[in-house]
């Protein structure tokens, strides 16, 4: 069923379909980034495919490949009950030039997923109506799910407060826990 789907896309777009493979029964096609939007429109509108739902859209970072990012879209047809995964490779090795057409005017769900993809990976979606960060705050610098983002790097919005006596922060010493329970009640002994 899904193989016919791949053949339909291949017959329509020819060389724009770079490679195909099948993983556990899920068909995947890797397409040229320039035909990204045309293929999505074909998948949505053609009578054989009828992909009326964009389930997921994200990216994968392969830092040692030359088109560094793989933008992945999962299409699903609720009427015909088949699925297809479409990938496109974009971006230079330094992370620049990661641009691809937006699907936001074809699929409503693409709007926020593309914003997330921009936020996390820095892939620009050309023609997106509102390409802002969606999870991180506007002051955040960089894209945290890129492989070269330092794992320990945090960018606090509020400056951390100065604490004079840093030993008072956790972990505490043995004597700084409950004043009851371990029978170290300081002021409970009532004077007769």
């Amino acid at each position, binding site marked *: 069923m899904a193989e016919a789907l791949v053949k339909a896309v291949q017959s329509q777009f020819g060389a724009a379909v770079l490679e195909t493979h099948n993983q556990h029964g899920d068909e995947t096609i890797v397409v040229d980034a320039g035909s990204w939007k045309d293929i999505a429109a074909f998948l949505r509108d053609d009578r054989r495919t009828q992909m009326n739902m964009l389930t997921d859209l994200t990216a994968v970072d392969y830092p040692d490949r030359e088109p560094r990012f793989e933008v992945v879209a999962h299409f699903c047809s609720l009427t015909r009950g088949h699925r297809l995964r479409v990938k496109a490779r974009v971006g230079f090795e330094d992370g620049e030039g990661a641009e691809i057409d937006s699907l936001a005017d074809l699929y409503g769900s693409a709007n926020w997923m593309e914003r997330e993809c921009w936020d996390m990976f820095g892939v620009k979606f050309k023609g997106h109506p509102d390409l802002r960060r969606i999870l*991180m705050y506007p002051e955040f610098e960089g894209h945290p799910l890129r492989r070269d*983002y330092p794992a320990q*790097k*945090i960018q606090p*919005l*509020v400056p951390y*407060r100065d604490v004079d006596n840093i030993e*008072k*922060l956790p972990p505490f010493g043995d004597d700084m826990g409950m004043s009851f329970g371990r029978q170290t009640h300081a002021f409970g*002994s009532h004077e007769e």
Partner: protein
Amino acid sequence: MGEMKSTTTHVLEAGEGQGFATTRFQDLLGWAQKYSLFMYPFVTACCGMEFMAVTSPRHDLSRFGAEAPRFSPRQSDLLWVVGTISQRQAPVLKRIYEQMAEPKWVMAFGTCASCGGFYDNYTTVAGIDKIIPCDVYIPGCPPRPEAVFDGLMLLQDKIASGNREPAIVKPRTDPAVSHNHGVVQLRRSKDA
């Protein structure tokens, strides 16, 4: 609970149904304050479920004089930070804290609020004490209601005694010791 147990309190008996007590003003004030905590629940994550259990009739936080939640920081004096605080949310929490009138106290409910928990990444504040001062830490993921009661009673002790040092709730019994009848046994390998 309930009686004034300060060492500076002296009850002078003058017959049946009469008499008076002398104490220091700070002791009287602390005794009054510790049973009239108006709490502001800043609930952000899964610890909120345990907070609901604490406040609902089965465990019943109102037994401890901390019954009334106030959803305006200007009317409350105990800030419960229940759950993970993200960097994006940190300015909100700081502003809530700053809007509360003195005297005010802060409880870190759960591991995430106390130190960030296992969220050691770009998006989570590693403990609310990085941005606001914290009085009592309640570890646990989430903490049991009994641990929360320990935390509240610990805070009440601290209020009554005027102690503003941060403190942490510890287990009543050390599980490593109690399950082995007082002896911590290390598992031996087969070769030994």
